[in-house]
């Protein structure tokens, strides 16, 4: 099964790390991305760069800022091929943001029949 591991980071948590800690953390993210079961991954630019759009009756409404006004912000994701939820949860627990005050939401990816 495919799972999306959605990373919600605590604001400032990564910036607060010392340079060495930051390097080590960054290396952890890359190690996870290099796992052969990892199909795709991305880290997003800071939340200040977000632009949100809506389309109402064909009219595009553009606003500055992220869609959800939450404390933790959506910071990136991994897409993982795993046998079951337990494997996906185990992988998720190794994502640095989880131990830096953030949280990882694990959701199965919709699979369409071709």
């Amino acid at each position: 099964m495919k799972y999306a591991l959605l990373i919600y980071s605590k604001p400032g948590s990564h910036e607060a790390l010392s340079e060495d800690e930051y390097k080590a953390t960054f290396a952890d993210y890359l190690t996870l991305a290099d796992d052969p079961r990892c199909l795709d991954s991305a880290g997003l630019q800071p939340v200040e760069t977000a632009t949100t759009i809506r389309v109402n009756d064909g009219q595009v409404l553009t606003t500055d800022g992220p869609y959800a006004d939450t404390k933790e912000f959506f910071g990136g994701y991994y897409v993982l091929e795993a046998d079951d939820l337990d494997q996906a949860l185990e992988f998720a627990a190794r994502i640095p943001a989880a131990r830096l005050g953030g949280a990882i939401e694990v959701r199965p990816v919709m699979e369409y029949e071709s």
Partner: protein
Amino acid sequence: MLASLIGFLGDFDLAEEAAQEAFAVAAERWPREGTPANPAAWLITTARNRAIDRIRRQRSLTAKTKLLDVPEATMDELPDNAAIKDERLELIFTCCHPALAPDAQVALTLRALGGLTTEEIARAFLVSEEAMKRRLSRAKNKIKATGIPFTVPDDHRLPDRLAAVLAVIYLIYNEGYGGRGELAGEAIRLGRLLAALMPDEPEVHGLLALMLIHHARREARFSGEELVLLGDQDASLWDARQLETGHTALARAMSLRGRGPYVLQAAIASLHAQRPLDWEQIAVLYEELHAQTGSPVVELNRAVAVAESRSVQEALEIVDGLELDGYQYFHAARGELLRRLRRPGEARLAYERALALAASEPERRFLKRRIDELSP
């Protein structure tokens, strides 16, 4: 039977439907053709074949195609009972997976392993049958959609996951202890099943012992409608056989060097069921339990034991250091200690706080009596 089918089919709903169909076929055939030599194997084989038929009919469910490669078992080659894989343990761990909401874990466990009907579970938890049906089907859908595995967790995950299973069984027991006795019985049955399936896990025997020893004293907890305190209980009302079974389970846990929270609670319950009460030893065990759990409620219980074994003043000092203001028994225990220290005014206030928080009628009556006795 259901566990074996779910293990084979990987699908709760399909397994339930197949089991029902197999029973229907049996009800029709057995009276006519005689009961087969091995009814359980016959039912499982029939149910499996029915399920495979059903999957064949719904070929669009491509995820299930691997099952179509399984050759259809014929009635001539029935497995004997020993060869039918017992997959109840896998089923318990699936039902109690932490990705499911706690109330869903409880309902699913009772449905799949406890053998209660949806209606019975709904009644026990005071919700409508419709609501319980929805809760169960949401849980089953989540298992399927998210790929919650049908396995016993590996060694490194086992302690956490087993703790979750034990918590579900104990929760069911406590629901029953509060009055709905059929749930307490069901929890004990589940505890026995788990102890048989995991004979080397001390905490499993500890939980079983805890439930049995508590349950053995249920008749003595009330005199008519009135609550009876532990020290005043009539030991002749205890269920001696159940107490004995509980002590055997506790001995088994101890021989496995168990010293976890359920084993300790069972050991304390066992001391509660001895006369005269050994409050000194009870206080020691509560201290050990508190070191593991950090629970202020455990400290409160230790204070009660200290009041009996050492000094009431020392007990009050422990109690006054606890932050349990919203907890009925904190105020009740404080009231009792203050009463014994001959501080009736403060005792009365504490009992009144307890009364304001008490929900059960017998407890309310007990507290009111105490308050009346302390009135000038």
